[in-house]
């Protein structure tokens, strides 16, 4: 059987058509095929959250979904969300609150934080911790990340 798959999807609003090996996961596809390297590859088995990508409006693990499965989907990465300005306030707050150190977790953390604020505009600190529990950060100890997300929630509600 054919081990390649033809896919057509949109990535950050741009139509993309490629022929890919079926085993290519979505995060490797956007990184190597499309050279969008903001989504990071950490554990490759769904634990760390560094590969978080948005598919059809919802965050997913980019390492636990095949590019083949994204045929017909709308995919958004940190590059797209950065360019359209939709998370500029989160990025600013992460910067100002030192919620970024090495930056490896940051793209996934930002996409996760944005989904939280869309689903729950008034999260408690506990809600924030629960929602980002699937994204490992090995630098900050999370305190600054929770602070930054909390600040943006307050600002958006002001």
């Amino acid at each position, binding site marked *: 059987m054919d*081990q390649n798959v033809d896919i057509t999807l949109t990535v950050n609003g741009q139509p993309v058509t490629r022929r890919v090996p079926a085993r290519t996961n979505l995060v490797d596809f956007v990184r190597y095929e499309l050279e969008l390297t903001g989504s990071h590859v950490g554990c490759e088995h*769904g634990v760390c959250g560094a590969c978080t990508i948005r598919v059809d409006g919802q965050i997913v693990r980019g390492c636990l979904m095949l590019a083949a499965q994204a045929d017909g989907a709308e995919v958004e990465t940190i590059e797209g969300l950065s360019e359209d300005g939709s998370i500029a306030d989160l990025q600013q707050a992460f910067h100002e609150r030192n919620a970024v150190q090495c930056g490896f977790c940051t793209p996934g953390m930002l996409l996760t934080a944005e989904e939280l604020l869309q689903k729950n505009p008034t999260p408690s600190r506990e809600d924030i911790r629960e929602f980002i529990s699937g994204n490992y950060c090995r630098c900050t100890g999370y305190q600054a990340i929770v602070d930054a997300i909390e600040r943006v929630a307050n600002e958006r509600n002001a």
Partner: protein
Amino acid sequence: MKPAPFAYVRAENLAQVFDLLDEHGDDARILAGGQSLMATLNMRLSAPEVLIDINHIDGLSDITNDGTTLRIGALARHSQVLESADVAKMAPLIAQAMPHVAHQAIRNRGTFGGSIAFADPAAELPAVSRAIDAKILLQSRNGTRSVAANDFYLGLFETAMQPDELLVGVEVPGIADGERTAFLELARRSGDYAIVGIGVQGRIDGGTFSDMRLVFLGAGDRPILASAAADVLNGNPHNDETVAAAQAALDADLDPMSDLNGPPEMKMHLARVLTKRALTALAA
């Protein structure tokens, strides 16, 4: 940490799935949410020749409630189940367990049916399915059969599902008036697999237990229904003596394996701690 090569088929209907299962047998794997399968493929713990993607088959993701029975389609995503008012009303134990199932990005993809079919002994939903008398709906070319959750889990990752069958949904009788539920688990990080977890459903009328069902995850080679502990509770008052007797009865119910979290003795201790907490929560 990349999967071995395989072919991929996006199935359009169930007949095509059954054809592919006939053709490829053990060399094929069903791809639903993929949140366990993809990890095992990435680690090359599994190397199928073909993946059959069932995500685009119509009619497998609905959650319906006819007032008596809740039906959860196999492809209902965890996040969909978590937010379902019908699930909260008809099967509160599922609703209570669901926040413990992985993390948002995984809940957006992972499916209810996939979790049941994979039958991980440390997962929440297989254990819960035993406490709520769920029926597992298995479809093949020959039709659909219903298997009680309590007959479904046969061993470590082993179920009553046959190679030519697809899990298409789960039916749950709506919770009866007066029944209470509690779900607790211990995990190193919220959303990770539990070290040990417990689900409880039953009655406390006039301070006396009845119809008690206790299930454990992470405490054996499959989700465990703790019938000895339930027998101790039923007909007895909710007090320290009864709870202690139920804790002691777990010796007959549980046979936890040693794993990365610790030895069996530690898991037995934690199971007893959770039992007391869950019964306290049930009475609250």
